[in-house]
């Protein structure tokens, strides 16, 4: 399996050096656009219980929306009979508490490192808007990590519990 990391910081891939077992709260939904609201509701309920404030909840909502949209549109190539597996939990990593969301799919491998951030410009023709979803995930969460391979894709997103 290949590993990637996103977000700020220079810590190794898979923060803390170990895989997380996020089995506290799990949810499996059809990989359809109509499921995104259900997935968001599941994640936000867990995030609220974990103590995230309203601004952090808004950021988590945006990141989960963009991640699920990417899974349906790009990993699975559109709506079908596939699934998205979601797990949430809290962990202390290197002395800091995080709310963690993990999304898994069995779609096409995806390497986020090939996606460049948007470069705003007032030049109509030069403005590129591809990769906005990944950009939002990176900006709205404290850290994101991707793993992809034959078993599918796994995305883990971290939001600090205390700002």
């Amino acid at each position, binding site marked *: 399996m290949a590993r990637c990391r996103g977000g700020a910081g220079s810590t190794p891939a898979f923060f803390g050096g170990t895989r997380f077992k996020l089995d506290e709260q799990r949810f499996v939904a059809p990989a359809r656009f109509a499921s*995104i609201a259900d997935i968001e509701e599941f994640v936000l309920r867990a995030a609220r219980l974990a103590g995230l404030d309203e601004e952090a909840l808004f950021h988590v909502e945006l990141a989960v929306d*963009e991640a699920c949209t990417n899974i349906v549109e790009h990993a699975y190539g559109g709506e079908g009979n596939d699934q998205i597996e979601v797990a949430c939990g809290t962990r202390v990593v290197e002395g800091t508490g995080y709310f963690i969301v993990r999304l898994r799919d069995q779609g096409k491998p995806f390497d986020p490192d090939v996606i460049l951030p948007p470069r705003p*410009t007032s030049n109509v023709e030069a403005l590129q808007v591809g990769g906005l979803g990944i*950009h939002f995930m990176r900006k709205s969460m404290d850290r994101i990590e991707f793993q992809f391979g034959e078993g599918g894709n796994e995305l883990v997103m971290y939001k600090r519990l205390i700002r």
Partner: protein
Amino acid sequence: MNDTAPVVWTAPLRDEVWSVGVRGRLDHNAVPQLESALRELAAAGHVRLMVDMELVSYINSGGLRVLISAWRAARREGGDLQLCRLNPRVNDIFRMAGFDQVFRIHDLPSDAVCALLNEPAVP
């Protein structure tokens, strides 16, 4: 606002400036409606557009892409698409993308209309 109110609506303002109103979450459900409304305006030759975001509580990358596409189309035809009344959360999303540097964003609809007509803002 009742539940049957349209999510997206358009209205002529003055001197070929059109208003595009949007209500609720600009997510995967509502974005196609916005895209359709903006395309209809472009097809009718209306290229001076003000999108009033007062009632928008959320926008994702799909919503931003539709606005950028309409802004690009309007600019190509000598017009513009400008925005007004973004709430702080929605403004935060625009800033994350750097699109607060792309769009002209106004506090008041009247300021947006004046800017689209190249008139000084009403004091």
